[in-house]
């Protein structure tokens, strides 16, 4: 159905509806089954639930296992390792070049120790463990991602190699077949010329 019908729309503008368009519009003009439905929705009085924000674990002095000095050392190491790793990922370089010097670490450590002593902030052991695990294994994620890419590539190469081998085998078989055919024909021709009485 490709007949173009010219249908002016209320004399305002012209658009060439196709026959299929017009039949659709005619159908759309028909009444739908009446439904007693309220167009005005009920928004309701109940407000949307507030976004639940994660709450930090409560501080319990009983959880303290380390002195302020030990905590300061721990936190400093965590910061140094985490920050240098992050910078290395960013630059695709080595983490060692971004690590703080001994002097810088010492200054960071001092401030954290003072903070711990004055404010009484302590990091629970479970959190320290979580942070360490995150840093140790998290730092290996880029490596795992790269390794995965290489493995996938190797699989594809292997797949391609097999396909090529199969194609080569097929080609060889075809060539052999053709050679056999050619020899048959040659033999047949030779037979014909040998038989006596051929004119």
């Amino acid at each position, binding site marked *: 159905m490709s007949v173009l019908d010219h249908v002016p729309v209320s004399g305002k503008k012209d*658009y060439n509806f196709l026959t299929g368009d017009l039949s659709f519009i005619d159908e759309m003009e028909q009444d*739908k089954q009446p439904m007693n439905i309220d167009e005005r929705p009920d928004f309701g009085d109940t407000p949307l639930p507030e976004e639940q924000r994660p709450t930090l674990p409560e501080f319990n002095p009983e959880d303290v296992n380390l002195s302020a000095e030990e905590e300061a050392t721990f936190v400093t190491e965590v910061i140094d390792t985490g920050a240098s790793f992050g910078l290395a990922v960013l630059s695709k370089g080595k983490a060692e070049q971004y690590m703080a010097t001994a002097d810088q670490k010492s200054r960071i450590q001092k401030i954290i120790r003072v903070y711990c002593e004055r404010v009484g902030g302590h990091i629970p052991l479970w959190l320290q463990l979580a942070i360490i695990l995150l840093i140790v294994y998290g730092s290996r994620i880029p490596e795992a991602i790269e390794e995965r890419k290489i493995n996938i590539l190797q699989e594809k190469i292997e797949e391609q190699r097999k396909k090529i081998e199969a194609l080569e085998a097929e080609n060889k078989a075809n060539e052999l077949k053709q050679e056999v055919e050619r020899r048959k024909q040659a033999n047949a021709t030779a037979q014909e010329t040998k038989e006596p009485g051929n004119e």
Partner: protein
Amino acid sequence: MSELRAAKCTLVLGFNGTGKTTFLRNMLEELLQRSRDMGRRLKVLIVTPDDTEWQDYPENMLESPDDYIYEGIQRHVWMDSSGDEKHYSLTRISMFNSGIIVFDDCKVYFGDILPQEIINLFVRRRQRSLDVFFVGHGFTTIPPRAFTYYSDAFLFRTVDNIDRRKDCINNFDYFKRCQAEVNQKAKNNPYYHKRIRNVDV
């Protein structure tokens, strides 16, 4: 008494520049005019991904229950981004009844997986007295579920891969033949399009 019809779920597919927006615009205006001539109120809501199209129609963000009662064509810019804003558009639109709703360039805000609220909207379109349109550039830009439930499709030129929707379209072979036909004829008339009914098998 005139014959009653079923609420429609209509797909409009075609690359940029094939005239599908012009077609839609003229068709909606025609429907609006015919409704007015018969003394009826017709409301159309066009859901768009941003503020750059359909600008000649007033904006309606469906902020209050009264915003759902109107006559004519209005547009709703999908509130994207995360958090409450996305929830807002989805919630507000899912309460739209009685009229025509057009999801223009729907892939931008729906992706491949339709929110359940939208699925409910067009699956229960009869009960909601709602005609639903999905508009996209090709087969992969319209959610698969829409193909399962479509009643009509307007196919403009597109070379998008129809095979990606093979499992969703029940008259797939016919649809594919139509795509070939439309693309061929569009070489002479870039605005050529074809109506496909789901009864065409």
